[in-house]
């Protein structure tokens, strides 16, 4: 194992170590000769680490850059800058050929099990592909290994010769999982693996992923927008917003003692399937509007346009991601504890800022969104 830089050997993340990762996409002008007129900073300087057998949940809204981050980490998208080390090996400078060898250690499970499987290949063919691509000959032959894998993920081995279209969404996701674990990788990047599935199937797949982790010690980078799902499977959680990490900590801290206003907002929006508990929640934070455009992110803190804590400093100074207690990092000038939150917080629209006004945070007791002042 060769460590490329001395700094990485000091921190003990043995599986994945991502530092200052940036993925920018060029924005082209219209016309016959397109010029690059700007950049979408999909991922803008994130650090992540992952130990063996650990699950890191990466949550955020659509447009937060979580999927781009996941794809970049496996070099499916080339990063603009930054370092990615998998088991101590720096992979950003590797050629496509060398990357094939890395994929033996790091695999991916996709959101849409309908598009992630080649419809013209049989299930057996799909699951045996990793062995063939990597030139691995398991004991007892590839076919036996595949049958064993099918059994392990809850597929009927008799369906070896069937095609993906004969399976339901949940079963297809099992095929994707069998393919991902075929070579016993150290890391699996899961991009919204259960969000397209029915609730009863979602639970089956989450349990399966948990079991496989306990069995093989695989580490997961689990990308999802559903905070309840992430809570169920993760050991640590990182919250992303507009290409940046806002807060990262252990699961316990993120869900019971978060400090970032954005984390509070996300948590207060998660519905609880119990009318009594839902009505007795202490805080309701209503974020109006959507994420600002990543082409032209707000100055200073990217979240300030929707933040109820925002002050002048936030527009000027980018808050660094700083460690405030062991393992708990936060990028915010004005962190707030849950007990200090008001009962209801309404945050005015992004457009107010877009049109040159200061971000206005309206704190009120019981205003429906329909009765809030129109812009």
């Amino acid at each position, binding site marked *: 194992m060769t460590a490329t830089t001395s700094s990485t050997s000091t921190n003990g993340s043995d599986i994945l170590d991502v530092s200052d990762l940036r993925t920018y996409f060029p924005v082209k002008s219209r016309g016959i000769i397109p010029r690059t007129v700007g950049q979408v900073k999909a991922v803008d300087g994130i650090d992540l680490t992952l130990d063996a057998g650990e699950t890191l949940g990466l949550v955020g*809204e*659509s447009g937060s850059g979580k999927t781009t981050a996941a794809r970049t980490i496996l070099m499916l998208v080339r990063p603009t800058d930054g370092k990615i080390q998998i088991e101590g090996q720096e992979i950003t400078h590797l050629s496509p050929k060398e990357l094939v060898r890395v994929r033996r250690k790091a695999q991916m499970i996709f959101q849409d099990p309908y598009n992630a499987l080649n419809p013209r290949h049989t299930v057996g063919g799909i699951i045996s592909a990793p062995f063939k691509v990597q030139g691995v000959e398991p004991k007892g032959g590839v076919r036996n290994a595949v049958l064993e894998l099918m059994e392990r993920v809850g597929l009927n081995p008799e369906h070896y010769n069937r095609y993906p279209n004969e399976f*339901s*969404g*949940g*079963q297809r996701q099992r095929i994707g999982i069998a393919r991902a674990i075929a070579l016993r990788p150290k890391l699996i990047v899961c991009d919204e693996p259960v969000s397209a599935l*029915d*609730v*009863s*199937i*979602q*639970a*089956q797949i*989450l*349990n399966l992923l*948990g079991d496989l982790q306990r069995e093989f010690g695989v580490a997961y980078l689990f990308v999802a*927008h*559903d*905070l*309840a*799902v992430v*809570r*169920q499977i993760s050991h640590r959680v990182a919250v992303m917003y507009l290409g940046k990490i806002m807060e990262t900590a252990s*699961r316990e801290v993120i*869900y019971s003692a978060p400090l970032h206003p954005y984390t509070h*907002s*996300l*948590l207060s*929006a*998660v*519905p*609880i*399937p*119990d*009318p*009594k*508990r*839902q*009505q*007795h*929640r*202490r805080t309701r934070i*209503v*974020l*109006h*509007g*959507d994420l600002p455009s990543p082409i032209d992110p707000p100055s200073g803190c990217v979240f300030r346009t929707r933040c109820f804590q925002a002050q002048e400093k936030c527009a000027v100074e980018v808050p660094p991601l700083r460690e405030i207690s062991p393992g708990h990092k936060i990028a915010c000038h004005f962190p707030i504890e849950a007990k200090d939150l008001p009962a209801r917080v309404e945050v005015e*629209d*992004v*457009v*107010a800022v877009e*049109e040159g006004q200061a971000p206005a945070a309206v704190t009120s007791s019981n205003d*429906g*969104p*329909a*009765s*809030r002042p*129109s*812009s």
Partner: protein
Amino acid sequence: MIQPADYLDRPFLSVTDLTVAFPTQDGLVRAVDGVSLSLEKGKTLAIVGESGSGKSVTAQAIMGLINRKAAKITGEIWIGGQELIAMPEPDVQALRGDEMAMIFQDPMSSLHPFYRIGDQIVEAIKAHRGIGTKLARRETLEMLRHVGIPAVERRIDAYPHQLSGGMRQRVMIAMALINSPDLLIADEPTTALDVTVQAQIMELIQSLQAEFGTTVILITHDLGIVADVADDVAVMYGGRIVELGPTRVIYDNPEMPYTLGLLSSIPRMDRDPDKRLDPIRGNPPSPIKLPKGCVFQPRCNYFERVPGGRCFTDRPELLESEPEHSVRCHLPHEERQQIANDVLHALTGGPTPL
């Protein structure tokens, strides 16, 4: 037979024995089989179910959106004194968008991509009311502002692709409500949206409902968003309603093993995350090949407790278990309550502070 004069004491919406069957190569497929429900004016009913449960087909049948040539629709649908199934197609069309309206999961496929959003709403007004473009446009502006679209003067001339998912969903809600319908059907209105936007849209629907007195049917697979919105919940499985009751009863005393299974399948913020989820095994049934007896039997944990193997042979009826609470299950009432008690207690371990 129900006589026309009955509508005076009939609830605002009443569906009786609705069946929607599609002829296919594999025979007649009953996507909806004998659904009956009723709803008072201004109330919200949630229809909860997984894919293939028939929840969306039920909604489409009420809206008259199912091609009558392609499907066999039987039963009765009464809305405010009018029966829809026997009604001529043009009359149903006149009601749609006027007295009843629908919002869909994917606003992009429901808005016309070539027309400005304002023009689409103006057209919806003019199709049902004889007012001029100018007045209709002013009304459109007002409604767009009302549903929380910022900078409406500019956005009214935007094309759907220029708006974000949450904004498009708002436009669709504005279009649905522009003719003040009595009935609004929302089919998975927030499934494609982020949690923060989902919360905005649900609040918007609720506040508009309170303002206009709209009756709402909410179709969803997510028991979470239903909890603080719905007055009543109907749980559907395999084309049938398997449990029906007031929202609080469905969450506190569910009696159908399927409802219990749904509740224990979802990862919830108020349960111990280190505890394994307890999912319903197997997959939802295909409407082409439904089990002979209880449709849920192959996935049920409790069918062995029913004597004589009736779950394999007899389709259970939807029977009243308590006043206002109906369940489709062969297990005796007391046993169902006992099971529910045990499962719910194991689930959240009694009250936990949030």
